[in-house]
């Protein structure tokens, strides 16, 4: 397979194992005295009470807000085209058939 | 066989008329009646095209069962 001559996942797997070994070493050098479930592992927010986990979690619709804002002119019409009405789906189908048939007939 | 060809001209036109009726009416019962008539005429056309097998199937399915289930569905939903 010419396209894959230089590509072998086994090499990558080997490097992955190596990397995880390194990570493991770093992890084992960590502080041993910390115990789970005590105040030691609690999140420290400048002495404030820890907020509700519901609020702490980044919601899905908040993610990539800037991206959508920047591409507003693309997303507006695109999302508007997804009307969810079955007739529109079929209109796309029929008009695409007509367009393609025209192209194919012209090009021969 | 020229007369037989005449039938081939008339009945397809009637089919188109029935289909147009389905298109223009708003009352679903009238549309169902028109669909029944279309199915009936289609069955006749199959008969004339020497396909009695298909004609029986179209008569049994298109005219009886399909109309029946359309009517039942309209009864279960609403008419307009």
């Amino acid at each position, binding site marked *: 397979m010419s396209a894959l001559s230089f590509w072998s996942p086994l090499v990558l797997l080997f490097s992955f194992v190596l990397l995880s070994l390194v990570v493991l070493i770093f992890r084992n050098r960590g502080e041993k005295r910390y115990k789970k479930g005590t105040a030691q592992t609690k999140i420290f927010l400048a002495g404030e009470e820890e907020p509700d986990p519901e609020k702490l979690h980044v919601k899905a619709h908040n993610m990539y807000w800037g991206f959508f804002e920047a591409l507003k002119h693309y997303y507006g019409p695109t*999302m508007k085209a*997804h*009307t*969810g*009405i*079955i*007739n529109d789906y*079929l*209109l796309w189908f*029929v008009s695409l058939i007509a367009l393609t048939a025209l192209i194919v007939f012209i090009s021969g | *066989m020229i007369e*037989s*060809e005449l039938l*081939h*001209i008339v009945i*397809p*036109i009637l*089919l*188109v008329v029935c*289909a*147009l009726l*389905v*298109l223009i009416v708003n009352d*679903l019962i009238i*549309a*169902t009646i028109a*669909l029944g008539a*279309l*199915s009936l005429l*289609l069955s006749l*056309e*199959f008969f004339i*095209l*020497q*396909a*009695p*097998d*298909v004609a029986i*199937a*179209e008569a049994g*399915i*298109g005219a009886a*069962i*399909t109309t029946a*289930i*359309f009517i*039942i*569905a*309209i009864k*279960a*939903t*609403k008419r307009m």
Partner: protein
Amino acid sequence: MTESLFNIPFLAIAALIVISLYIIITQKNLIKLVMGIVILESAVNFFLVSLGYRSGGATPIYTNAPEKLMVLPVPQALTLTSIVIGVSVTALMLSMIILIYRHTGDIDAEKSRRLKG
């Protein structure tokens, strides 16, 4: 064979297909949509049967068959299958429409829509 494609029945088939597509695209009532599909199916069945027709041919059943030209049997078998499938599709669609009506109280494509975007 190709020249027989330009007969009146074929024009009627084209008209039926156009009408049914128009119904399918413009009518928001779901039962009307199903009617459009039924008309489209009828048009395709009609097309298949007319392909097999030979002017002056006999019925393709060997019982008592006279010794003459016979209509092609294969398209008729195809049409039969297509009719069988058509009725099951229609019945399934209509029962789904009944369920849609029970859930949403409407059979309009726009008003009974829940999924979008």
